[in-house]
């Protein structure tokens, strides 16, 4: 893993205090910073490459297409299937609508995503890294553009080394311009999730979109260009935290990209035997063609074993299979398999694989638990909510007739797309009368209305004779809200305060 030119120098040099000159020399031989070695991945074709193209296409289609899906919610709410409505403080996902009070659904979604990632990783290794991660998808797309404009690996290496010329300059400009265009499309699609897509898109082009929208388009253009065009594998190796701890999810039963060392070693160039004897006698199947290294998008040698930089995309498997076909040896010298299977084959046993392991059972159980909690919460989501804030200044008011009045601010959250009427009841305070400054309530109830998809706010007064209060200073009071037509209900507990007797 720590191969490379500085491998030897990593051991701490023995510092000789008396001989300062030798210390200096040793220090000079051990740079603290090693420059990036640019990776020029070679194009390859095969099963994994095809799979990667398909996933890439699907991911991009979802990303660019999703804002255009429509979903009818009536005239009171936006008709975009997936929408984060910042000014309206709401998020829409098809039939689901989330208010800021319910942001725990988002938390739940993130927890769910994390556990799914853990489960998939423990079963199939770094599928996320190699196939679905936006960093991988956009890097792959940018590499495709690079391939079309500058050619394959060898052509690109040659171009890098070539002196400046018009054609080199033209190729560079074409490449970076294409990248910037893709990056702008990425940023442009991002803002479509935050506004009505058919309205926002023309606005972007006519220059009438908001500063915020242009800012985020610019931001995502910059990050896409930098991360997918310039930084590439360094994002995975140095910036992303996931590769650092994903090994905790892997064990010898997880599918990973492996090199079958027992079959491949000792490696070497295939020498033609002039005497007609078996050229494969006494040697491994690896012909040391370096195809696997040349195709690797992170520039590593999979034959060194499992390593942090490997994103598990399997392109080296495709590359090796091509070579194995050519030299007439069986495919699968580099393969997508478990370490246990490889071990078994190395010892001549038949491979056995266990999908069901304590680890996967645990992840699946947690997943089921979190999933059912989320589902239950979603199904039991109410269409109306009630919040009651009692006035604290003053705590209570004595009226001329001796009764005590408390004031409350009532918020009715109408989460439906229609206007609704509600009856608010107050319970727990004997002979209580509920009113607003304009409406005199009948007994302990009051009729209120709330506009569609809005919070109705009303200051209400609860007035009751002091004589009816058992514990005068503080009485528990329950506000019950009933929707008049669809039967939606909500309740809120508060207190009714009075001077102590």
């Amino acid at each position, binding site marked *: 893993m720590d191969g490379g030119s500085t491998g030897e120098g990593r051991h701490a040099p023995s510092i000789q205090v008396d001989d*300062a*000159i030798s210390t*200096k020399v040793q220090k000079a031989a051990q740079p603290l910073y090693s420059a990036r070695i640019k990776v020029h991945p070679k194009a390859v074709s095969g099963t994994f490459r095809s799979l990667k193209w398909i996933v890439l296409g699907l991911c991009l289609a979802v990303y660019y297409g999703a804002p255009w899906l429509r979903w009818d919610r009536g005239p009171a709410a936006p008709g975009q299937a997936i929408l984060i409505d910042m000014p309206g403080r709401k998020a829409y996902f098809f039939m689901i609508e989330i208010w800021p009070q319910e942001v725990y659904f988002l938390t739940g979604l993130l927890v769910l995503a994390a556990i799914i990632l853990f489960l998939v990783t423990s079963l199939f290794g770094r599928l996320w890294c190699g196939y679905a991660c936006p960093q991988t998808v956009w890097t792959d797309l940018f590499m495709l553009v690079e391939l079309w404009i500058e050619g394959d690996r060898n052509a690109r290496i040659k171009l890098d080394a070539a002196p400046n010329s018009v054609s080199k300059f033209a190729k560079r400009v074409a490449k970076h311009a294409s990248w910037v265009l893709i990056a702008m499309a990425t940023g442009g699609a991002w803002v479509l999730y935050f506004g009505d897509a058919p309205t926002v898109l023309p606005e972007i082009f006519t220059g009438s979109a908001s500063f915020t929208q242009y800012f985020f388009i610019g931001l995502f253009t910059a990050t896409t260009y930098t991360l997918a065009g310039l930084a590439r594998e360094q994002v995975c190796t140095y910036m992303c935290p996931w590769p650092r701890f994903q090994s905790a999810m892997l064990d010898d039963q997880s599918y990973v990209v492996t090199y079958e060392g027992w079959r491949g070693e000792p490696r070497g160039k295939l020498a033609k035997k002039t005497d007609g004897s078996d050229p494969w006698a006494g040697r491994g199947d690896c012909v040391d063609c370096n195809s696997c290294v040349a195709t690797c998008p992170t520039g590593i040698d999979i034959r060194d074993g499992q390593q942090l930089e490997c994103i598990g995309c399997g392109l080296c498997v495709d590359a090796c299979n091509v070579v194995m076909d050519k030299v007439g040896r069986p495919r699968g010298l580099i393969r997508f398999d478990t370490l246990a299977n490889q071990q078994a084959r190395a010892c001549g046993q038949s491979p056995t694989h266990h999908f069901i392991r304590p680890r996967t059972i645990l992840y699946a159980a947690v997943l089921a638990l979190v999933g059912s909690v989320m589902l239950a919460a979603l199904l039991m989501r109410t269409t109306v909510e009630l919040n009651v804030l009692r*006035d*604290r*200044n*003053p705590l209570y*008011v*004595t*009226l*001329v*007739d*001796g009764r005590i*009045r408390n*004031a409350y601010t009532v918020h009715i959250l109408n989460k439906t797309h229609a206007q609704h009427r509600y009856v608010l009841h107050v319970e727990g305070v004997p002979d209580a009368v509920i009113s607003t*400054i*304009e409406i005199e309530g009948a007994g302990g109830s009051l009729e209120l209305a709330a506009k569609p998809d809005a919070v109705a706010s009303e*200051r209400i*007064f609860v007035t009751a004779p002091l004589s009816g209060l058992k514990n005068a200073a503080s009485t528990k009071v329950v506000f019950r809200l009933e929707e008049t037509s669809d039967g939606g209900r909500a309740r809120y507990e508060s207190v009714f305060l009075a001077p102590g007797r």
Partner: protein
Amino acid sequence: MPTKIEKDAISGQDTTGHEWDGIKELNTPLPKWWLYTYYATIVWSLAYYVFYPAWPTLSGHTGGLLGWTMRGEIAEQMSAAQASQAPMVSKIAAASLEDIRKSADLRGYAMAGGRSAFGVQCAPCHGAGGAGAKGFPNLVDDNWIWGGTLDEIYTTIQYGVRNANDKSRLSQMPRFGADGVLDSKQINDVAEFVLSLSKRSTDPAAVTRGAVVFAENCVACHQEGGTGNQELGAPNLAANIWIYGGDKATIVETIRNSRQGSMPAWAERLDDATVKMLAVYVHGLGGGK
């Protein structure tokens, strides 16, 4: 003082020339980017002297080419805010109190504007929630000295109470003790009678005597049964709601020396729209009639 600057054999750097007990110090320069950034900030700061107010002079300060001042900026922001409020404020100024009350838009705006003005102008005496304090009436309850309808509240805010304004609310209770109208025993008796109006008296004999004193001296303003008269600004004595306190000693003090609380005429200080919004807000606190 630096004595001998020499080149260090190992690093190739100069020393500072300092030496302590044979220990010398390398003269490591600041990183270039840091140094130049520092110089750049100095150059940048010079621009402030030119463009912004900077140096004090005998009679003021240098103005700067941009003519910018912090006061000017606040004035600009204030006039921008006022301009944005102007459409609603002019509507409120033009509408009658009853119209404001009936229109949800105007009423909502008046409540918000009233709350803001109340916090600045009224809260120092009446409290942030309008609950009053000793000497300053509670505005949240339904007990009013000068009337609790929107119009009455509006008038009270406009002209205030016991001030120099011609239209000021004015009620004058005699100083029964200090001016010798009643003697101490009579004052004690009538105080017991006032306590009895809210069923708190402990001396029935004094109440009977006090009833006579009350009928002779107080009833004209405070009415039969002490229910008060809002046209005269005579407080209700039967409600057990007190401006200065309802214990006997405080009542005796009030009868003896009278009370002369006052409130400014806000029409002299605020524009009519603000006074209207204050009236709507105070009316909406809970006690409005």
